[in-house]
């Protein structure tokens, strides 16, 4: 059966038809042979019985007249029938009267039960032989018995002949059946094979436009129909899929472009945001300075308002009234007498006021100058972008500190500079400044909390790290960073500030990467301060200023 499973349907059909045919033929043949055997046996019994009857008839007189020679002669006549092995005439008493043995055969030995069977007519098939008993009846009286024993050669001969014929017929019929089945199996296998062929072609060529010719209205026809329908659907789906695929590619392309655009915008935005941060810091400092300017101005105005100038005007008015007789008035009049004293006092007060105002203006000027400086610095950084120019890291740090100086001062932060300046380097000043301003601003903010006890110390270090790296460290003793936030702080949108937008460190980190360096943070935990390290490639400036 496993062999059958791997055969093509054509051979399977053939095999099934042939097996059925041959089985039927063999069964029929066997049945025929068995029937033939029965018939032949009966025929043989009948023939032998007749022969026995004739013999009995012929021996009748011989037995009646005890003529052994005649009986023997009669029996000898049986040699014409070569299948007779043995023949015997018995007298009524069971004595052998005459017998005949076929030439070349052993004389028969009769068994006990055969003798018992002697008493009446009958027959039995012994091994390879048929024995017939026939009584010799004379005038209604049994006077003896004839026993004929024939071998079954004729039976075998006939059976052999019949078997040969039947086998021949079976072979011939099988051959005919084979050719017929070869011809008609196509009715069933043809469409199926077509279907299989089509399926194979489709799977090889991936051509779903192939259709199978429907040849019949039976189950195979239905199969073909269903197959074609399926192909139709597949083709349809495939087309849709290809279209969808193409559209998808187009869409991906579009999206990619959009994303690139967005990315660019985002980059710009972050850069701008970084710049805005710097601007905010700048403005903050500017605001601080402006505040002190404002205070100075108010103080000046109050001073001016309270000024002795008004009293001086009163004195001047009194003098004007008495201008005609000023000497008298000054010497005689009660009020006049106090005027010189008053004037001395006023001039003294005015001189003080002037000194104070001058001082304040000087401060004012200083502050304005500071603002000018900051704005100028900001302008200088904002102007150039991504341009490396020779500069000193220490100067950059000082600038950053300077921008934040107002805030630092306000919070009473003590600055410790630990510069091991490697000398002039080639660097994108704007970006480095942006990062440093951001870092210092953050440190200031971290230390601005009321939770911070003791002195607020900001350490800024510059040192070379290895032959080709330099580092700027901003170390504060502020609120510190929680362990879980250490990695998040550089994420876009992450902030711990109430009004922060989470851009500062993110854009700083980006800027550091753009510079070919890195920005890292470490903290021992909340309340334990933080250290931000900006690592930059060391590129000494080639041209000496």
């Amino acid at each position: 059966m496993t062999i059958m499973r791997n055969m093509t349907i054509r051979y399977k059909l053939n095999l099934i038809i042939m097996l059925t045919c041959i089985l039927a033929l063999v069964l029929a043949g066997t049945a025929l042979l068995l029937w033939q055997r029965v018939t032949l046996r009966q025929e043989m019994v009948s023939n032998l019985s007749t022969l026995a009857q004739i013999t009995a008839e012929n021996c009748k007189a011989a037995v009646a007249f005890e003529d052994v020679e005649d009986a023997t002669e009669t029996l000898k006549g049986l040699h014409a029938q070569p299948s007779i092995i043995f023949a015997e005439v018995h007298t009524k008493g069971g004595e052998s009267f005459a017998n005949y043995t076929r030439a070349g055969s052993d004389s028969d030995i009769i068994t006990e039960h055969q003798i018992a069977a002697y008493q009446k007519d009958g027959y039995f098939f012994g091994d390879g032989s048929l024995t017939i008993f026939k009584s010799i009846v004379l005038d209604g009286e049994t006077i003896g018995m004839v026993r004929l024993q024939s071998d079954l050669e004729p039976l075998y001969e006939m059976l052999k002949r019949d078997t040969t014929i039947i086998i021949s017929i079976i072979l011939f019929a099988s051959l005919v059946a084979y050719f017929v089945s070869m011809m008609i199996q196509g009715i069933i296998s043809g469409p199926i094979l077509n279907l299989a062929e089509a399926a194979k072609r489709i799977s090889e060529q991936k051509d779903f436009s192939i259709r199978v010719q429907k040849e019949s209205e039976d189950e195979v026809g239905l199969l073909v129909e269903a197959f074609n329908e399926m192909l139709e659907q597949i083709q349809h789906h495939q087309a849709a899929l290809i279209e969808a695929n193409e559209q998808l590619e187009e869409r991906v392309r579009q999206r990619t472009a959009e994303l690139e655009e967005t990315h660019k915008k985002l980059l710009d935005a972050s850069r701008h945001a970084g710049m805005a941060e710097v601007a905010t810091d700048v403005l903050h400092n500017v605001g601080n300075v402006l505040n002190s300017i404002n205070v100075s101005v108010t103080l000046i105005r109050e001073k001016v308002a309270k000024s002795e100038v008004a009293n001086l005007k009163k004195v001047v008015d009194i003098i004007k009234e008495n201008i005609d007789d000023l000497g008298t008035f000054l010497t005689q009049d009660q009020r006049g007498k106090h005027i010189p004293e008053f004037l001395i006092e006023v001039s003294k007060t005015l001189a003080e006021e002037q000194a104070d105002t001058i001082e304040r203006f000087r401060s004012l000027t200083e502050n304005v100058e500071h603002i000018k400086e900051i704005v100028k610095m900001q302008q200088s950084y904002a102007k150039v972008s991504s341009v490396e120019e020779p500069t000193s890291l220490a100067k950059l740090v000082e600038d950053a500190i300077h921008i934040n100086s107002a805030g630092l001062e306000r919070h009473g932060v003590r600055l410790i500079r630990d510069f091991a300046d490697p000398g002039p380097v080639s660097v994108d000043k704007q970006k480095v400044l942006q990062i440093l301003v951001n870092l210092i601003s953050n440190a200031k903010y971290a230390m601005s909390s009321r939770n911070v006890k003791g002195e607020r110390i900001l350490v800024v270090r510059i040192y070379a790290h290895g032959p080709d790296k330099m580092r700027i460290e901003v170390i504060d003793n502020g609120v510190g960073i929680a362990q879980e936030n250490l990695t998040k702080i550089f994420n876009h949108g992450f902030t711990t500030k109430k009004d922060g937008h989470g851009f500062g460190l993110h854009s700083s980190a980006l800027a550091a990467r753009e510079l070919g360096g890195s920005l890292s943070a470490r903290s021992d935990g909340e309340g334990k301060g933080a250290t931000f390290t900006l690592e930059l490639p060391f590129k000494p400036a080639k041209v000496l200023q």
Partner: protein
Amino acid sequence: MKVLVDCLDMKNKINTLMILVFLGALAGHAIGGGDDSAPTREYQVKAAFIYNFIKFIEWPGPAGAEADQKSDENNEPITIGIIGENPFGNTFETVTKKKIKNKQVVIKHFGGFEKNNIKYREDSKTKYKYKDADALKACQVLFVSGSESEYCKEIIDIVKDSYVLTIGENKDFLKTGGIIEFATEQKKVKFAINLIAAENAQLKIRSKLLRLAKKVIEKEEDEEENS
């Protein structure tokens, strides 16, 4: 005896039969008179042969036809006559129980020819006439005993036209016109048949019997012999 047998029921039949056989033997012995000797094997065989001859021979007329089994009462019996000394003893008596061709068999004993002739004169000639001549003629089978060898011709002449199967044991029985002649060869009983005589007696002898005959006298043979 037959009546006696019929009267007895089956159970005792065999016993009775034995007694009867014994009685019969005694009777035979008594009747036989002069022939004291018991039948020899030879005569037993001959008796059987005579019986069997009847089966292979057909008589003309109603006597010959095989009897209808159902109406055996109406059938005439087959009579076997024995003329002369009875060499069979009581053999036949025991055999006659059997029917032949569904007919009863009757044995009749006739005295010697010589002793039983009646002298009479006719046309001034002394002639002899067997006293039981009619009875002889009525027999179907007549066995001419060896004791009558001298008168075979005379005896045959009596019955030759009366459908009687004549059986003899003399050497020249056939020549004298007898139909069957017994001869003993090497202690075996054989027989010869005179077919001409049989035809004269209008008896049909089956070929089977003829085949067994040691010698058959036929017309052609006769002619040949004559010529």
